[in-house]
């Protein structure tokens, strides 16, 4: 059983499917082929409900990446969740999660998308509450309910799609793009995608979902759950590019990017920093998508999936060694004690920053340069580049806190770098996050983008990154007598560090008045008047009547017989005198 654990079996299966998907995607890409499979489930009043699968290079490539990351994550979980009693349930949940993601990826039909979409929502809830404590429950509920908004939007979109007689949206997007109904569908789908990808009004669930086990975070926040929204909008891209939806999305997504980049600079929780960085990368994908460059979004989605999964896996290994502490202030000097893990951690961090020739560089640099040559206003331009600087800043801050200096954890703590199964899982992704960017670049863009920029603008990205790194290093370098600048501007710091109050707004803000009202109603109706005039009082009355009845039963028999005789006499009286 040691060698045939559920992790090993799933790993082998998933990785082989992943390879075959990858090969198929290469074949489809080469021949420019699309396979479309349709199975009619039921036909009703000329409406047919069909299960549809669309296989093109994009879905196949995405599937292969998701499956590869999932297989490595499961392999990694074999050691990470080793002492967990319910590891089988855990792996099955992860597998169901991957299955829902597959369904979502290959569906070009709104109803069959909903299948995968709801599967993702449900299983993500089960995974977030996997560790059973109040914090997890709260995080899970926040996650589930935020995603529920998107589910509702998708259902509404299905209802509106009824107008066109079929839910295979890919046939209608281009033809109907100027119609009001299609715009409505587009806005609903955009709402759904924004909840899944945690864009600005719905951002608060993503850091909260860090309550899930770290392998889940590695899977969920790199390639599956949060990218589902981006992928959906890649499919619906036509609707976004030529309407106000795209402009709105551009604003919200770049604000998300900015907000989470700032927030990550104030955060001390290792996993939350990574979650906020995911959020900022999602903002980047969404914003470039809203400008119409869906291939670039797809590109960044894939490369980001690689290094972000690696980053989370490294974080998991570190958390294991820190006795389950996630506070980066307690870390330090890890590069000496855990060299291999730190290597992976740094490589993925640099890839995230866009270090040349790592995975992130190709996609991020190209996105930023495309932004520069596009028609875009100053505000969005500022957000793009400032956020890029912030990304490097919080990455360097993270590296500074965790990798350099001395270990600040308890003195009886043993660090080791000999968790071989986890390391093996990470190695696979390490290679991918080094070579993934260039490989995808050559695959997806057979003809290179033509980008023509003056020298200053060309170096703007690099400059911003170097400046951001410097800034991140300097703000973290504190000593005993240093002046805490963020404490001077306490209000602003709290605002920026708490994701612009979004967690409070989407939890307390939403529930405060309804909950108070509910308490009032419960106290005054359910447990008050209704109870008084309903069950309890009625019961009390009936018991009283019953007591009165038995009072009457207490008399002797002759009284009853006398009463009967009186009654007969009364009747006789009537009989005789009427």
């Amino acid at each position: 059983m040691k060698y045939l654990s559920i992790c090993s079996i799933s790993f082998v299966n998933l990785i082989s499917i992943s390879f075959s998907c990858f090969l198929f995607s290469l074949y489809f890409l080469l021949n420019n082929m699309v396979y479309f499979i349709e199975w009619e489930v039921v036909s009703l009043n000329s409406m047919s409900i069909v299960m549809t699968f669309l296989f093109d290079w994009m879905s196949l490539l995405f599937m292969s990446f998701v499956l590869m990351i999932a297989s490595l994550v499961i392999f990694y979980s074999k050691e990470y969740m080793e002492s967990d009693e319910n590891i089988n349930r855990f792996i099955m949940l992860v597998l169901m999660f991957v299955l829902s993601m597959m369904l979502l990826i290959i569906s070009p039909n709104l109803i069959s998308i909903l299948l995968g979409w709801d599967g993702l929502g449900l299983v993500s809830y089960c995974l977030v509450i996997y560790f059973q404590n109040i914090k997890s429950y709260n995080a899970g509920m926040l996650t589930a309910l935020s995603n529920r908004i998107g589910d509702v939007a998708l259902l509404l979109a299905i209802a509106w799609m009824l107008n066109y007689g079929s839910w295979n949206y890919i046939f209608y997007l281009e033809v109907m793009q100027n119609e009001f109904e299609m715009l409505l569908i587009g806005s609903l789908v955009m709402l759904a995608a924004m909840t899944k990808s945690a864009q600005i009004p719905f951002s608060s669930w993503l850091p909260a979902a860090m309550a899930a086990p770290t392998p889940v975070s590695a899977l969920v926040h790199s390639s599956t759950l949060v990218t589902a929204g981006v992928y959906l909008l890649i499919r619906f891209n036509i609707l976004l590019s030529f309407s106000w939806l795209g402009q709105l999305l551009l604003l919200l997504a770049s604000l998300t990017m900015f907000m989470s980049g700032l927030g990550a600079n104030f955060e001390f929780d290792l996993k939350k920093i990574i979650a906020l960085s995911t959020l900022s990368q999602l903002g980047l994908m969404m914003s470039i998508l809203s400008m119409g460059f869906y291939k670039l979004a797809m590109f960044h989605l894939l490369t980001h999936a690689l290094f972000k999964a690696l980053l989370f896996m490294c974080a998991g290994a570190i958390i294991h060694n820190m006795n389950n502490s996630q506070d980066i202030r307690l870390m330090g000097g890890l590069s000496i004690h855990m060299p291999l893990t730190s290597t992976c951690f740094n490589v993925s961090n640099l890839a995230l920053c866009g270090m040349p020739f790592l995975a992130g560089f190709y996609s991020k640099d190209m996105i930023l340069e495309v932004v520069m040559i596009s028609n875009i206003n100053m505000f969005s331009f500022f957000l793009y580049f400032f956020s890029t600087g912030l990304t490097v800043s919080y990455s360097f801050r993270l590296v500074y806190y965790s990798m350099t200096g001395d270990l600040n954890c308890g003195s009886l703590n043993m660090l080791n770098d000999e968790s071989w199964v986890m390391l093996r899982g990470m190695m696979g992704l390490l290679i991918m996050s080094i070579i993934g960017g260039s490989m995808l670049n050559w695959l997806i863009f057979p003809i290179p983008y033509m980008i023509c920029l003056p020298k200053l603008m060309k170096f703007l990205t690099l400059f911003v990154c170097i400046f951001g790194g410097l800034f991140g290093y300097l703000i973290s370098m504190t000593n005993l007598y240093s002046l805490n600048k963020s404490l001077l501007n306490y209000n602003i710091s709290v605002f920026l560090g708490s994701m612009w109050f979004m967690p409070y707004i989407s939890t307390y803000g939403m529930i405060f008045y309804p909950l108070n009202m509910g308490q009032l109603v419960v106290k005054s109706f359910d447990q008050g008047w209704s109870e008084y005039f309903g069950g309890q009082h009625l019961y009390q009355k009936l018991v009283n009547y019953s007591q009165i009845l038995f009072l009457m039963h207490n008399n002797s028999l002759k009284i009853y017989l006398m009463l009967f005789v009186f009654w007969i006499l009364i009747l006789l009286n009537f009989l005789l005198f009427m």
Partner: protein
Amino acid sequence: MFNNSSKILFITVMIIGTLITVTSNSWLGAWMGLEINLLSFIPLLSDNNNLTSTESSLKYFLTQALASTVLLFSVILLMLKNNFNNEVNESFTSMMIMSSLLLKSGAAPFHFWFPNMMEGLNWMNSLLLMTWQKIAPLMLISYLNIKELLLISVILSVIVGAIGGLNQTSLRKLMSFSSINHLGWMLSSLMISESIWLVYFLFYSFLSFILTFMFNIFKLFHLNQLFSWFINSKILKFTLFMNFLSLGGLPPFLGFLPKWLVIQQLTSCNQYFLLTAMMMSTLITLFFYLRICYSAFMLNYFENNWMMTLNMNNFNMNLYLILTFFSIFGLILISLFFFML
């Protein structure tokens, strides 16, 4: 019960008395049957070794004798006025007859003797009192056709039956109030048709037979005995309470069927007010049956150290289980047969 040959005699005579009443074509004959029935039931009730049953038999005798007197008196009055023919068209006279018959059967305004008397009886006599002794007076009531008094009696019966059982811990009183409640339903079914009355009566007898059968075997007289008695056999406890619910008329069980018939008939006769009163009061009875069942099934209970083992022989057990099967699944089976037809 049957080890005494005199009891066989009295039971036979009691049955004959009822049959005379039911089959006679004159009021005098009916009265005679009732008297025969009464006089043979009294020796069945009294037990020399038991003070309470003697007292009960005396109470029964006094009450029934008074009722018979009034019945005879009013019958003679009727005959005097109507030249010995049997037609009942004189409302006050027939109201007197009706009153005496209601007293005999123990319906509501004249029910006070019934629970008090039943408290002193053993279970088999209680069963006779609840079922067989009702046949003759109810048949006679069906000959009379005055709605008003009957209506009042029905409503009072169901209400008294419902409210009286609410605070009860004695099983015999509980059963007697349940009997009064069912008597209300039977009287109301009498207003509509005799066949429905017959059906109701048969089902009621069947259900109360199962319960009294068990009570008699295990000598159960109080509710707390029910809770603590059947520790050894959860099945017996469970089925017993299912029978309770069936007697109360909870829908998936057989006891609902006669109620269903009556409800349907009354609805088709537009007797909505009566029906509302009956159903509301039956809800109260169901409430206290359910309350008993809840506390028996769900609350923890005391176990008796001195508890006897089950002293139920195989035949009784089989009989009980077969009857219980019908009581629990009867309604479903009947509905299925109806579908098959």
